[in-house]
């Protein structure tokens, strides 16, 4: 038998399996909620040049003042849009955490997440096989890596793996919802691992105002009284009333700009565990959190998912590239040249493999700031995309 015949013979699959594969499984629906949000986050990153929430000011002369990670720029009124890019990099162009993505620990599959600082690392659990797959050659790669506990987090859920000198969060890959909120508090020590510092007041899905909280201890005190809050399995759950949407960024949990939402009618909705989890904490607890947030929140600007800057690539050296934003400036004389170092493969691979070159219009995503004293060095640059100028501004091809 050859492959084409087996492909045909797949029609012998049981009807129930065929039907099931055409339906959207419940856990995937919940997962998609997360994906949709992340996509929104990515989209926000893409338009962030124009729409930095409160940081954007429309000017009388049809220009827009925006902040690139704290650096103010006055740009022409252009719509800057970009699509999500999904480049599958060859093995040698991947970062180590992109290469080795899967860990099997005690028979359970864990999947790689974000980098984690050494201060979170606890006891060593042992050395285990981590695997990766090279889609270009079809070859599976394996290496042995040290696996560690993360302080305060059950190793059944999240562990840290040492790869190439750094630590990375590996999260359990299955859908294993807890019975109640207490189980989550115990397994993840959320009061220590999840700071609730930034929140947005929402009416349904509409975001209203953004606030900062200096101290989240009281909120965790309230939440610690909700240990028996039941896990609600409701894939059709949607936002109706008012809610406080806390930005959930946690190194220990390996999440970045996820959501921890408290609704006025007494629910918690969060996507920090990959799947959408809902707990019913009750109106009373929610009211306490709302009151505390109202009294102690200080107005702030919206936190973008990621910063972006765009411009023309003017120079490529062995060490860095220069990007000039004159094409966007309301006054070209005010143009700035940004320096992005190539010591991160996430940037250099776009030059080496994707062939981005001098003269191209590019969009750089970054999570840090711009160090003007050091010569406009972009800190935390993590992605570079080729953009194209259109009538509406710059867009990135899919």
């Amino acid at each position, binding site marked *: *038998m050859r492959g084409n015949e087996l492909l045909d013979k797949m029609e012998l*699959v049981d009807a*129930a399996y065929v039907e099931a594969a055409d339906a959207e499984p419940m856990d995937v629906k919940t*997962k998609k909620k997360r*994906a949709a949000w992340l996509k929104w986050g990515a989209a926000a990153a893409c338009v962030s040049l124009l729409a930095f929430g409160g940081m954007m000011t429309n000017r009388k002369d049809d220009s827009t003042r925006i902040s690139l990670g704290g650096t103010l720029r006055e740009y022409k009124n252009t719509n800057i849009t970009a699509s999500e890019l999904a480049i599958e990099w060859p093995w040698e162009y991947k970062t180590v955490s992109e290469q080795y*993505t899967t860990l099997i620990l005690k028979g359970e599959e864990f999947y790689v997440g974000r980098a984690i600082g050494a201060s979170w690392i606890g006891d060593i659990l042992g050395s285990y096989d981590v695997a990766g*797959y090279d889609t270009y050659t*079809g070859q599976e790669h394996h290496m042995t890596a040290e696996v560690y506990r993360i302080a305060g987090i059950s190793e059944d859920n999240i562990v840290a793996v040492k790869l190439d000198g750094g630590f990375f969060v590996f999260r359990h890959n299955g859908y294993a919802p807890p019975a109640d909120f207490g189980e989550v508090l115990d397994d993840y020590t959320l009061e220590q691992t999840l700071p609730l510092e930034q929140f947005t007041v929402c009416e349904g899905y509409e975001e209203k105002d953004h606030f900062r909280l200096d101290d989240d201890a009281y909120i965790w005190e309230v939440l610690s009284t909700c240990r028996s809050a039941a896990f609600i399995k409701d894939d059709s759950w949607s936002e109706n009333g008012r809610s406080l949407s806390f930005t959930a960024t946690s190194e220990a949990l390996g999440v970045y700009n996820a959501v921890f939402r408290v609704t006025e009618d007494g629910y918690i909705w969060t996507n920090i565990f990959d799947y959408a989890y809902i707990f019913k904490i009750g109106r009373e607890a929610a009211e306490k959190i709302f009151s505390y947030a109202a009294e102690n929140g200080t107005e702030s600007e919206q936190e973008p998912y990621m910063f972006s800057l765009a411009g023309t690539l003017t120079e490529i050296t062995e060490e860095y590239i220069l990007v000039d934003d004159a094409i966007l400036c309301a006054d070209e004389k005010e143009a700035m040249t940004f320096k992005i170092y190539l010591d991160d493969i996430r940037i250099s691979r776009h030059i080496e493999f994707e062939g981005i070159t001098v003269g191209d219009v590019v969009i750089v995503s970054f999570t840090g700031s711009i160090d003007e004293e050091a010569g406009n060095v972009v800190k935390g640059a993590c992605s570079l995309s080729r953009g194209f100028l259109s009538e509406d501004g710059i867009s990135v091809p899919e």
Partner: protein
Amino acid sequence: MEALDDSKIVELYLGRSEAAICRTSEKYGNRLRSLSYGIVGDRQTAEECENDTYMEAWNAIPPHEPRGYLYAFLARITRHISLNCCRNRSRLKRSAFLCELSAEMEQCIPAPDDVESRMDDMALSQAINGFLSSLSEEKRNLFLRRYWYLDSIACIAGRFAISESKVKTTLFRCRSQLREYLEKEGYTI
């Protein structure tokens, strides 16, 4: 108008009422056309395949009475017709896609050769379904989206809200597991 129950639609076929095709089309037309389009990549051809599906269903019911699995029954016909159509019409330019899928499927065969399947369909069905039952629900669905519905990797990644690289890795493992399963169970295909 509310869609009819599958069993009532099957009754219409059994009663040789042409309304059977109308009701089938109302209930499943979009899904069947979309399944076919995913394979043939051409709207007009997909519509032809959909219509041919109704014709085949008309001829196959009776003797078949797929009351509890009408969609799967129809989809199997659509898949079969669409695959044949794809192979017969070079203008569809889908041969590269089919070659890719065939090459992937070949990795599941312990000792691929040019001899036609040595197993009858019933035994082969048992082998494939036995393997599928050993997979987790997500892996099984992912495997079927690729090799039954013939979805692209990107489409599967979107559907399951996972990365393309994870889809590829999972499929690679599933193929290896199927080969091992067939070897271990002594199936010679």
